[in-house]
Structures are given as structure tokens and as C-alpha cells.
């Protein structure tokens, strides 16, 4: 766990680069979705529900000293895949690094075609939300 957020993002970027067509990149997200640790049912409450998606998304953030924690889930596998990536990038990372992170993740992963305009707005919202904690 010595990689920075940026370095981890680069790893993902490389993996996505290897996948040539949008379908494979999408399918890869589905694969990744199973790696996201499931959220406690108690946390899947209205309080942590994130609005603005066709599917349900739950997000829970915490900050302990200077470290950022997150828990997340969705009933969409694709979104779970995305959440897994976010979780990998940000969970238990120094808070400073998370909040100062500027790069456009969607662009970086080359998955903007994975998401429609409205979905992108949702993702951007999540990212802004993360940074605003």
C-alpha cells in the first residue's frame, strides 16, 4: 500500500487500455464489481443513498485523523465496478491526497463512452462529493 492515488489510477488506466472495445471494458467493470466488499445492510439506508442514478447507490465516507475511509455499494453491477475502482483509489488513503486529487478519472480510464451524459453527471457528482467530505 505504498502507491499514491495517482499511481493506482495509472494501473487501472493500463488495464483498461488493454481492452479494445467498449463491451470488454464494460464487462471488465462487471468482473471488478465482485471485488467490492459488500456494505453492511444497516448502512444501505436512505441516509447514505446517493441520488441521481437509475440504480441505487449508497456511499459512506469517514475521516479518521488524516485518513479517508469509504464504503459503497450499488444494485447495479456496472456501478459497483466503478465504485470498486474508487474504493481502491481512495479508501484508507491520506485525506490530503484524496481531496487534492484533480485528475479526471473517467477521462483517465478512457471509459467516458461507458457512461451516458446523465450517468457521467452522477459519477462527477460522486467524485465531487468525495472531495467535499
Amino acid at each position, binding site marked *: 500500500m505504498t502507491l499514491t492515488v495517482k499511481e493506482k489510477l495509472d494501473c487501472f488506466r493500463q488495464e483498461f487500455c488493454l481492452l479494445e472495445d*467498449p*463491451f470488454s471494458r*464494460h*464487462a471488465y467493470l462487471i468482473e471488478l464489481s465482485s471485488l467490492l466488499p459488500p456494505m453492511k445492510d444497516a448502512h444501505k439506508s436512505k441516509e447514505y443513498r446517493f441520488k441521481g442514478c*437509475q440504480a441505487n447507490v449508497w456511499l459512506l465516507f469517514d475521516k479518521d485523523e488524516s485518513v479517508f475511509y469509504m464504503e459503497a455499494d450499488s444494485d447495479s453491477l*456496472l456501478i459497483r465496478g466503478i465504485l470498486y475502482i474508487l474504493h481502491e483509489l481512495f479508501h484508507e488513503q491520506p485525506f490530503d491526497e484524496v481531496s487534492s486529487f484533480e485528475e479526471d478519472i473517467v477521462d483517465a480510464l478512457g471509459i467516458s*463512452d*461507458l457512461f451516458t451524459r446523465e450517468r457521467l453527471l452522477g459519477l462527477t457528482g460522486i467524485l465531487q462529493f468525495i472531495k467535499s467530505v
Partner: protein
Amino acid sequence: MLNTRVYGSPIVYLDNAATTQMPYAVLKTMEHYYHHTHSNIHRGVHYLSEQSTCDYEKARNIVKDFMNAESEHEVIFTSGTTDSINIVALAIEPYVNEKHEIIVTEMEHHSNYLPWQALCKRTGAKFIVAPVSVRGELDFEELERLMTQRTALLAICHSSNVTGAVNPVKKVIECAHQKGIPVLVDGAQSVSHQRVDVQNLDCDFYCFSGHKAFGPTGIGVLYGKQQWLNQFMPVKYGGGMVRQIKNGEPAYWESPAKFEAGTPNIAGAIGLGAAIEWFASLPRESIISHELELTQYIRSELLKIPGITLVGSPEEQIGIVSFTHRYAHPFDIASLLDKLAIAVRSGAHCAQPFMDRFGISGTVRVSISLYNTKEEIDYLINGIKRILKVVDGR
């Protein structure tokens, strides 16, 4: 018609319940209008205006014949089904009070649900939602029970945009009329699939959208029986609807002008006329059987796939099939299908009450039209299988 490649593949368009594709002839007709006769209709004495008035009224006549309306006074051009329904909901307001009830069904599209709910709120009338059976069909006995002397109007879809279930509207209307209840039929999903004969149905109002019937966007139709249209006050005020203003009192033209204030969607109406002319010229019986065959094929192929549940199993249905999957969210399936260049729709399809009834948040909806083929369905089914392999392989 469609001529787009998505991610390198020709598109398989199976979202016809949202919008149908437009035949080339319709586009050509509209183009010709804009090139050659574009000008404002009515009251102009110059050639162009005369020409576009003629074309506009010809379109009305085509629609009239298509629906078998008694007169062109009964055919009002609107901006779409939603607009048509809202016009009736506003026009009927003076006839509705807190002693009344308005009935819709659990399978209505928001466009045939919210306007009536809002009307009830404004007038104090009671808003009643007639239930749907586990098969996704209208519960006719229950509806019959709900219809009483207090019922001011029944609003019901000709066929459901989620399951494709065809309602027995003729029987419903007969029953409603026996109790003196006017009936509005939302035909948004029906005109491109079924035969529509408003005199045979004897409905009081019938609504549909151009863009779901091979026509352009921004145009729709409200059919209303003359007895209603004559007594209704206009709901939209503006140019072209008054004969004169005398001592400050406007004297309205008769329907349809009374309900078409402002410059109408002239090109849209002409385009819709061309679309319906095109559609009406096709051999209807063979289209209906082709669509039925495809629909049954979709249903039987989907049923073979483990984990998939069909939503609704109506006895009579048009070319719409909705399903869910054990693990994969409708959003996942539709998104992945899109990456295979297959256009279907996921979500609640503006039918929240129906979703609530079935305790689901949404479905994947496959909806066909006359131009779809068995090959396209095979491609769809293979696509779904491919996606579910990924999902199951997690």
C-alpha cells in the same frame, strides 16, 4: 430510416415504444414543405400560405380517415400524447368537483396518470387507481366495480408501454357508457401496432404521438367527440382561434381551430400525415402477424435463459416485452447491450405505479416495430446471453 453505426456495428433498434424510426418518404415530404411551401397557414391570401393551409388540412383528413373519426372537426393537432391528455384534463375541469372521482389504471404511463392526479388535486375529486392483475392485465371486474355515478372520467391506455398488454377498451367503454362515464384512451403505443377505429370503440377521446407512429417529433393528435369539443372552452389562447373580439368578448371558431391557438406545428402535421399515409398503405394484417410472431419469439427465447423473469404475461399483447434478471440490474443489461449496438430501454418507463405494483425498480424493455427482423432478435438474444455469461462469471 436509421443509418448509423454504433461502435462500428450497424444498430439494432429495439426501442420503438419510445420512438419509431421515420420512413424516408416522411422526411422528404417535410423537406419539400420547407423548401417549397413553408409559410404560416390560415388567413393568408398568398399562394404559399394557401398551399400550406391545404397541406395542413389534408394531413388532418388523413388522420381522420386513419382513425375513422366522423369529421375533421374531431381531429385536433397537439404537440404529442402528453399535450393531448393535458388539454382534456384542463378542458374538463369545470365539469369536475369534489363529489366526483376520476379513474386511471395502475398500468398508466405518467402522462396518463399525473394530469388526472393534478386535476383531482385542483378540484377536490377523488383519484382512483384501478388495479392490475399479476399477469399485468387490467382487472376488469374490479374496474367495473369502481365505475359509479360519481365517476367523472375514466382514462386508460389502449396498450401498456411496459408489458404491451392490450386492454379490452371496447368492452370497458361499453360498460363505462352504460354508467354515463366518458372514456379517454391513451393510444400512444397502439397506433403503430393495432387497428384504431374510434367510432367502433366509441371512445370519447383518443390520443397519440407522431413520433411513435413513424412521424416527426413535436406533433400529436387529440381525437374528441364533437359533443365534447363543442361544449369545451379552449385551454390555450392566442392567434387563429377567435373569429372576432366584440366589446372585449372573444368569439371562438369551432373545433379544431378553437383548440389550436398559435401557429401550429405545420411541418410536423404534414410529416405525420405522410407517415400515416405510408403506414396505412402497408398490408396491415401481415404486419400484425409479423409483429406477433416476433414478439412471441422474443418471449419464448427469453424464457429459455436462466435467471430471466418476464414482467407480465398478458393474453393479448403488442410488440413490447419487459424483463428483469436475478443479478443484473436492468441498467447493466441495457448498457452492455448498447455496447453491442443494440438499443433497448431500461428503467421504470414512466410507469412508477406499475413498478410499485410489481415491487420492482425497473425492467429491460424490448420493443419492436414492423421493420424489425428475426435476425435482429437472434442478435439480441445472443447479446443477452453473452452479457449474462459475464455476469454469472463474476
